[in-house]
């Protein structure tokens, strides 16, 4: 799995740390959608996800001037920062699982087709219902497209433990989204 446009990334980060506008714009273009997606899927709340994305980049800008190329992968570092910010917010809520913001799930319904947006909403809801560690694993590997090694590094677990989380998480998703994937 790829982690998206990592070639020359160290150089970009160093240049961003020097205040070079084009490097800053490129990093934001490459990374913001990924980090926003991660936060959105972890928190289930668009406004909070934006706050986390913004805070993640503030920390990146702070770290960029002293960034040492080759010491760590920027994408992995950014994911870890974002994930930790998500943990903080989830802890403050006092619970890990957030109800999706768009109201009760009506399911596909017998007389209406599933449009892409409906499918998206169903997937978001199913993800939000997963136990947190399973959700993190699925989000990092299947949505953020990180490799097993990268995801297990971020989560601080072995690849085997990650595999177990993934299998359990996707088994639950497979059951809760059965009407969709079976119709594929």
């Amino acid at each position: 799995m790829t982690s998206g446009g990592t070639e020359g990334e160290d150089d970009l980060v160093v240049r961003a740390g020097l205040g070079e506008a084009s490097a800053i714009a490129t990093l934001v273009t490459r990374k913001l959608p990924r980090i926003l997606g991660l936060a959105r899927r972890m928190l289930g709340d668009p406004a909070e996800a934006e706050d986390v994305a913004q805070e993640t980049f503030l920390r990146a800008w702070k770290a960029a001037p002293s960034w040492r190329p080759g010491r760590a992968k920027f994408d992995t570092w950014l994911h870890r920062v974002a994930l930790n910010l998500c943990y903080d917010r989830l802890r403050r809520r006092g619970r890990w699982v957030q109800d999706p913001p768009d109201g009760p799930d009506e399911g596909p319904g017998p007389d209406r087709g599933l449009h892409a947006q409906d499918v998206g909403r169903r997937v978001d809801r199913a993800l939000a219902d997963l136990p947190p560690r399973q959700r993190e694993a699925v989000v990092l590997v299947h949505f953020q497209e990180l490799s097993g090694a990268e995801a297990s590094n971020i989560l601080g677990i072995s690849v085997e433990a990650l595999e177990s989380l993934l299998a359990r998480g996707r088994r639950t998703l497979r059951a809760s989204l059965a009407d969709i994937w079976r119709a594929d």
Partner: protein
Amino acid sequence: MVAVMDIEDFETLALAWGADVALWPAARQGPARDLIGARAAEAETALNDAGRLDRTLRAAILPHPSLDLRARIIAASPRPLERFPSWRGWFGAALAASCAAGVLAGFLVISLGVFPSHGTLSGDPAVEAAGLLHASSDATEG
């Protein structure tokens, strides 16, 4: 020793990592391909099921960052001025502190009258001999 994979292991791996064997952990790929060769029909069923779940998950909504969020993030990014080495900042701060201390000391000297007068030191033969006191006193009185 060659790791042997059975169909149950294969199904679990397909469930966990998805339908693309090339994206599975490297150590699992060889045994998985062996199993696909040996039990093609069952392996294909497992991969097809995993692939359909993969496609369903990919249909999830990907949030697009708003222009406002992007602008806020870029506005907070490092500025070229911030490139100055930190010693310049420290040097500037030290210089400013020295100047402030000098001004304060001068103010105290003037306002509290801590310059020595003739009377207080006139008994000191060393000072009298040097003539410093008279010179200073003349300068201030003149």
